[in-house]
Structure formats: C-alpha cells, structure tokens
C-alpha cells in the first residue's frame, strides 16, 4: 500500500497548533513510518503538490494568499481537517472583523498606526504584505471541510486521537472533552 501523502498548512494563525503537533513526541515516529509529509511549514517545499490524501489546515483565512492556497488545497486534497480554533472558528484573527466589514484600511490603521509605538506607517510596498480579505473567515465557510479538530491549540493527545483514526482509514469522531474550544 502506498504511504499516505500528508500535508500541514499554516494560514492565519500563531503556529501553536503546529507546536502542539510536534508535542506528539514519540508518536511522530509511528506517524513518520506511515506517511509522506509532502508539504508543511517544517518541510522545504514551495508548491502545494497534487494528489494529497490528507491536509491539516491551521489558521483562519485572512488574506488573498491564504485564499488562493486554500482553493489549491481543496482542489488537490482528498481529506481536509480544520486544525485548531482559528481554522474552525476564525478565533483570534477574526477579532479584527469587529472593526467592520470591507474595511481593511481600518485594520491596518489600527495595527500599524494607532497601536504602534514606533515607525507608525501602514506598509504600502507592493508584493510584501498580501491584500487582506474584507473578513477573516473560518476554513469551512469557504471550502468543504471533512473533519474538525478544535482547540487553541488542540492538545497533542487530541491530535493523536484524530490521526490514529485517519491513518487507520476510519472516520474520526471527537466527543466529550476532546471537543472543547479554547
């Protein structure tokens, strides 16, 4: 049997979910034996490949780069897992949505001018900061998502519970304390 092609993606989030993933400790060896990690922040691969079996998406969809990558992921991936609260709910990145819909200038102004101590200036060089989306969105509002893995971050054993099922070809079904947000 072919090894499972797995990707992990970091959109608008703090990387805490990936840190938690690394907390899987020795279980990572078991995982490594069963998968090919084809794309990840911890893998040197620039382009999201074709025919990915499983992708864990960390982070909310905040800007056009995120959105473009997300559509690419959906087109090239069999199973998507929303990985962590930012991907599932929008979480902290989505707090900026309260500043107003379609008002990204507001957001940049708030971050780079009003709340900045030095160099108060909205970055305007082209191609550096990706264009923000009008609203930060959770992943499933934009593309179909197969499974949800909430938590901020999801503790390692919760990640393990999902991975064990997926690697065995079964549908994970989180219940009880494993479903806690935050």
């Amino acid at each position, binding site marked *: 049997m072919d090894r499972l092609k797995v990707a992990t993606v970091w959109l608008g989030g703090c990387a805490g979910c990936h840190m938690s993933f690394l907390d899987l400790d020795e279980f990572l060896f078991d995982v490594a034996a069963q998968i090919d990690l084809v794309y990840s922040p911890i893998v040197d691969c620039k382009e999201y490949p074709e025919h990915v079996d499983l992708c864990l998406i960390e982070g909310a969809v905040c800007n056009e780069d995120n959105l473009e990558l997300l559509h690419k992921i959906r087109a090239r991936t069999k199973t998507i897992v929303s990985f962590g609260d930012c991907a599932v*709910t*929008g979480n902290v990145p989505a707090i900026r*949505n*309260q500043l107003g819909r379609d008002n990204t200038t507001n957001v940049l102004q708030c971050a780079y001018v009003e709340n900045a101590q030095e160099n108060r200036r909205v970055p305007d060089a082209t191609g550096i900061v990706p264009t923000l989306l009008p609203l930060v969105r*959770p992943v499933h509002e934009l593309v179909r998502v197969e499974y949800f893995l909430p938590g901020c971050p999801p503790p390692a054993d919760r990640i393990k519970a999902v991975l064990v099922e997926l690697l065995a070809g079964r549908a994970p079904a*989180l219940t009880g*304390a494993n*479903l*806690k947000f935050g």
Partner: protein
Amino acid sequence: MGAKTLIIDGQTVSAENHVTILQAATDNGITIPTLCHLDGVYDVGACRLCLVEVKGSTKLFSACTTRVYEGMEVTTQSERLKKYRRMTIELLFAERNHVCAVCVANGHCELQALATSLGMDHVRYDYCFPKWGMDLTHPFLGMDDNRCILCTRCVRACWHIEGAGTKNVAGRGSKSHIISDLNEPWGDSETCTSCAKCLLSCPTGALFHKGDTVGESERDRSKLGYIVNAREKQQWIV
C-alpha cells in the same frame, strides 16, 4: 400536597405536586441541558434548550416552566431535540464574539461546556461579528457585551434576589443588550450595591471581576440558590 407519578425517558419517577419537569428530572438524576435556568432565579423559558417532548402533543415544552401532571410521559433526549439543541448553541456562537481562547471564562463557561456536551465541532452558520463594547466603569466589575448570550440571569438575580434593579434589557431582537439602570455607565449607577450576584449568575464571561485570571474566575453559581433557599424556605444547611 400529593405527589405525581410520571415517566421521564422511560423511567417512572415521582415528583411533588406543582414542580416543573426540569425539577422532577433533576431530582431523579436526569440531566436536561439549560442556559437561562439557574437555581434560585425564577424561570422565564427563554433559551429553549430544555425543550422536551410530551406524549400526546406535537408541541415542545420548556421543562423549566412546565408543571408535571399525573401520567405525563416526557422525552428529554430524542434525535430531534438533540439536533435543535446543537443548532441553538451554534446560533449563539454565531451571534456574538465568543472567542473561547482569550475568554476569562475559558474552562468554566456554561456555553462552552454545552457546545462540548452537545457535540458541536464547528458552527455551520456565518458568524455575525457584531461590534459590541464593554462597560468597565464599575470599580471592580466588568461587562463585556461580546460574550453575552442574553439569558437575563443577571437581570433576574439583580431584581429578585438583590432587589437592586440595576440590570435591565434594552433594545430588541439581535440588538438587545444588558444595561445598567437606564443605560448609564455601570460605575455611575446609584442603584447598584456591588453585590456581584450578577457575576455569580452569569453563565459565560460576559460579567467578570476585573483583573481576575482565568483560574480565578471560577464561580460557584449554586450560591444564589442557597441564598434563596435560606430566605424563602428557612433552610440553612444544604
């Protein structure tokens, strides 16, 4: 007085005359999810989580406001009820800005706990992301409208247990919100006794003690029930 015999989820239970379905269920170890109910505070049947099916009627009844009767047959956990309850919780999460990760009530929030127990792994409705403010004018208490679910437990505790009548509801529909007095800054309120019963009653992190950490924000909501029990039934020992 007299007692009533009824069936809840197939279990024959007996209940005192005039108690609600919720009371009868709780007394017999049957859990019905609730949000706007709190022991000690009178019931309003607003959150609709405790809706149950009663044999012989196609309507659903709020367990917290419906009295038991002899021979009543109640179902508290049908697939339909579970579906509605999960939808209700999802609607609440979509309504305001509930960010568990940075909430002072994280880990001891009734809304969060219900999401967990009702199996909510994500919210299917578009988040509204409304802009709500906070009232931090009180010397040591704070109110964050973003986390309020409008259960009105604080309003009822304030009026009927403390008798201060500081907390009120203003606006209607999704613009409803909790105010102090006639929409004054809380800190300017002349009626507030700073008893913090509102804080004790709050199921989420909407009302909080300023400066408390998440760990310090755990609250014993049953205290209100003890106060009312002592006052009305002269029962001092739980």
